[in-house]
């Protein structure tokens, strides 16, 4: 969920990328830019610490949004957009009346496993760090509530089944923009000397001023525009040389959600429930003969809906199908 704090973090990440390009520094590690320790944070420094840092040659970079005109620039309709596609690690195979889980567990990646037995779907959400055998046992227990099923190692045996399909689906992350805000953000450089300020400004200002978008944690971005740049020497008595970069930041306030990938779909068409059967070579999906092809009957509404649902199921890496 993006908010002003995420914008702070975006600025901080960008600044840290300049001052400590090798990544998170160990305590006391000087920045290769200044040769001294640099501190980067959101909010204002505390005076006592800043006094001590200025005398020790330590740079403080503070990111803050001062009281300033606030503009609500909301202009996009609310809709969910995938930021992270579903990830599937579980693999399985079908042989005769057995479904065997092959690889992909134990894992902490949340996934749903579906086994469709003679047109009846059984869906199970795996638990973190379950083994393949444990998943097979859980599936067998679930199926056995409706019909005989047993687990044998990593396999689930469903006697007398004629059609078996196994599917695994992951969970996608999506974001929806609720509002769009434009407000001012200041990046304060508190340096001990003018030379130190120049050392930092040289590489930092082009990066910040040149970045049109800074990424936010939820996959959205803040659009930044440099609108002011002040060099302040009037605070040199306490050995504080400042530079204040002022940005206009436009960012979305968002909601984020996690949505399961569709492994089983059903439609309700003209009073009848149409299930998606196992699409096996012996049971081809209705889309195997595209409507309108020579020799095919005219497509019905059911055909169209099933075709759309099947396409969504087949495109594992494509846009997920929202089930809401």
């Amino acid at each position, binding site marked *: 969920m993006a908010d002003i704090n995420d914008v702070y973090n975006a600025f901080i990440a960008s600044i840290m990328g300049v001052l400590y390009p090798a990544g998170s520094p160990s305590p006391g590690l000087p920045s290769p830019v200044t040769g001294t320790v640099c501190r980067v944070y959101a909010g204002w420094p505390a*005076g006592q610490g800043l006094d001590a840092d200025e005398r020790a040659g330590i740079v403080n970079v503070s990111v803050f949004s001062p009281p300033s005109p606030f503009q609500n620039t909301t202009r996009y309709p609310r809709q969910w957009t995938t930021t992270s596609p579903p990830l599937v690690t579980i693999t399985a195979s079908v042989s005769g009346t057995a479904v065997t889980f092959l690889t992909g567990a134990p894992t902490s990646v949340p996934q749903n496993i579906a086994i469709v037995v003679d047109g009846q779907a059984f869906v199970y959400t795996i638990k973190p760090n379950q083994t393949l055998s444990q998943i097979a046992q859980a599936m067998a227990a679930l199926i056995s509530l409706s019909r005989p099923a047993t687990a044998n190692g990593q396999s689930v045996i469903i006697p007398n089944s004629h059609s078996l399909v196994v599917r695994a689906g992951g969970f996608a992350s999506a974001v929806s923009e609720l509002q769009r805000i434009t407000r001012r953000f200041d990046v304060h450089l*508190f340096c001990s000397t003018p030379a130190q300020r120049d050392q930092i400004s040289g590489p930092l200002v082009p990066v910040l001023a040149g970045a049109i978008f800074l990424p936010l944690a939820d996959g959205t971005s803040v659009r930044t525009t440099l609108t002011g740049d002040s060099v302040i*020497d009037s*605070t040199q008595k306490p050995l504080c*040389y400042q530079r204040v970069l002022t940005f206009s930041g436009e960012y979305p306030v968002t909601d984020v959600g996690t949505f399961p990938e569709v492994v089983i779909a059903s439609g309700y068409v003209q009073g009848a429930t149409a299930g998606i059967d196992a699409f096996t070579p012996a049971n081809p999906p209705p889309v195997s003969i595209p409507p309108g092809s020579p020799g095919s009957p005219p497509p019905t509404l059911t055909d169209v809906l099933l075709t759309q649902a099947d396409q969504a199921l087949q495109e594992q890496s494509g846009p997920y199908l929202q089930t809401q």
Partner: protein
Amino acid sequence: MPTPLNIAANIWRGYGIAAKHLAPPAQIYRPTDPLAPIGSGSLINTLPASFALDTNYLKPNRYGNAVWRTLIDARFTLVGDYIVDYEDISWFIIEQHIDLPIISVQCNCTASFYTPQQQTATGENPYGGNTLATETLYLQNWPVSILQGLTPIGGAPSKVGLPGDTTEPRWNILLPVLPDSFDIQVIQRDIVIDSLGRRFAIEAAEISEFGYRIKAQQVLT
């Protein structure tokens, strides 16, 4: 017929005898190096010294006071000498008039004095502005008295403008008379950094027979 100096000498000798009964010996230093006022090179004597607010030894000290009457054999001391007593407290003599009591200032810290960077070259100069590295040290580790002065009511906080800012407090700094041989003058805008790490900008430096009475602003970010 005793001369005034003879009389003073006798009185001072008497002070010394009294101090001998009241306090252990103290070290007497006469600074010869502006960068090392207290050291083996400036140790000139060891004398008993006793300090009080009155001759009856009945008055305790009070907040804001650094000036004490002093019993010491002043035949061997001068104004500006430091006395480091048995408790390792430093004092400096600010007056030993021949017919008046001897008075000293009790020090509560040490301080170093700096001249801010000056643009002195003819023609092009480096970037203007004072930094720690470009300040010129001219007095180092001098025991001084730094006590609260009168901070202007409603005075402006520091120019940095941090949320936690307070008014920059004013302090009174007392420094002994400096030997003429140093050819040093403490002036306004000079910087003082004390042993507590505080940093001051001198607003006014009064020089009198006692030494320097300095009004200083503590500078804060």
